């Protein structure tokens, strides 16, 4: 971790004159790390540059770009954040032409923390650090071994603690909808705790994360009660990869499956009757 920080600082310093700001992380006065836009006029702030714990930057980038429709920015992004930014560009939320990516590679330890299989960026032309080895997501794999009754009991037990803080949605780097289905009383009953079966909030959210989850694990990190939320989203991501050969935020030219009609061979992979 310590070798990447000076290299990242240098990369940002070189880029500062060319863009209106570089979005990264800064260690504040209380030692808390937060998103921060570094600008050339205050380059001294780079002394407080930080890289861990990571924060969900794609939505922050989207907000700044939206508020400044002609500005060119750079952003420090790990693989998951890069995926988030690329995916958002497909939904017309971020204009990639105005964004320079600084790819921060994750170490093996960081990959283990996020249960991440691919800790290396693929689009960023400027990269910092050498990626560690990806790890398998053992938590999700172990979950699949449970039978139906086991799975139901697992989620019932965990969702008993859900306080509907909406933190998982708020912190998600891919959640940008102005009108959120989770705030619609038709689907999610207001004031209903604990979670009913089926857990409407979580299942509706999981369906809306189809072909959007970038496996950043921020949802699990922010959950005040420690629910292993990523399991649902990652299982769906695997299904999307298998059925529609689509990996969120990977190929920039590939449109998400919900935009298109069925492609060649997709119907056979859905498991629907012929």
């Amino acid at each position, binding site marked *: 971790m310590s070798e990447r920080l000076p290299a990242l600082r240098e990369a940002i310093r070189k880029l500062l004159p060319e863009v209106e700001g570089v979005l990264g992380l800064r260690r504040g006065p209380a030692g808390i790390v937060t998103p921060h836009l570094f600008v050339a006029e205050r380059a001294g702030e780079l002394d407080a540059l930080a890289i861990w714990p990571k924060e969900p930057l794609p939505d922050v980038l989207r907000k700044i770009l939206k508020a400044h429709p002609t500005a060119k920015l750079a952003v420090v992004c790990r693989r998951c954040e890069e995926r988030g930014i690329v995916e958002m560009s497909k939904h017309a939320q971020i204009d990639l032409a105005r964004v320079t990516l600084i790819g921060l590679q994750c170490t093996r330890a960081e990959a283990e923390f996020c249960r991440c299989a691919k800790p290396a960026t693929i689009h960023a032309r400027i990269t910092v650090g050498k990626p560690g080895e990806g790890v398998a997501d053992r938590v999700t794999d172990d979950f699949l071994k449970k039978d139906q009754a086991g799975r*139901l009991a697992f989620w019932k037990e965990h969702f008993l603690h859900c306080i509907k803080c909406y933190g998982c949605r708020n912190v998600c780097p891919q959640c940008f909808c102005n009108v959120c289905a989770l705030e619609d009383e038709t689907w999610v009953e207001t004031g209903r705790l604990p979670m009913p079966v089926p857990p409407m909030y979580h299942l509706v959210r999981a369906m809306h994360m189809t072909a959007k989850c970038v496996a950043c694990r921020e949802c699990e990190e922010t959950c005040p009660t420690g629910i292993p939320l990523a399991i649902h989203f990652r299982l769906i991501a695997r299904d999307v990869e298998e059925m529609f050969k689509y990996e969120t935020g990977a190929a920039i030219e590939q449109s998400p499956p919900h935009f298109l*009609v069925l492609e060649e061979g997709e*119907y056979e992979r859905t498991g629907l009757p012929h």
Partner: protein
Amino acid sequence: MYEPKIIGFLCNWCSYRGADTAGMARLKYPPNVKIVRVPCSGRISPELVLRTFREGADGVMVLGCHIGDCHYATGNHRTAKRMPVLRNLLAYSGIDPERFYINWVSAAEGEKFATVIHQFTEKIRAMPPFSEVVG
């Protein structure tokens, strides 16, 4: 005796007319399926299916036009993409995915309609009521 409550979402142009065809041919099928007519099976959002289970349905069916025959050209493509993902999600949540049935029935397929309703009703009848799953 347990009589399963099943909600069937039928698209107006194909499967609903298939139900009419079954009716006109006086074909018999169990009365457990309450039919909701929608313009297109692509209109059925995952939220709607989940809400139907939440309201206590023991089984949910989505019947649309065959791929390529959709009245709105590609509406059923959305069905074919969203519903299988939802079905898997039900399985990941510990809810038997067999409770959720997706198929294509055209306006002329009255016999297929009756068969499908019959088979699905019996399958749901053999499973415990959804209220027992909820606990």
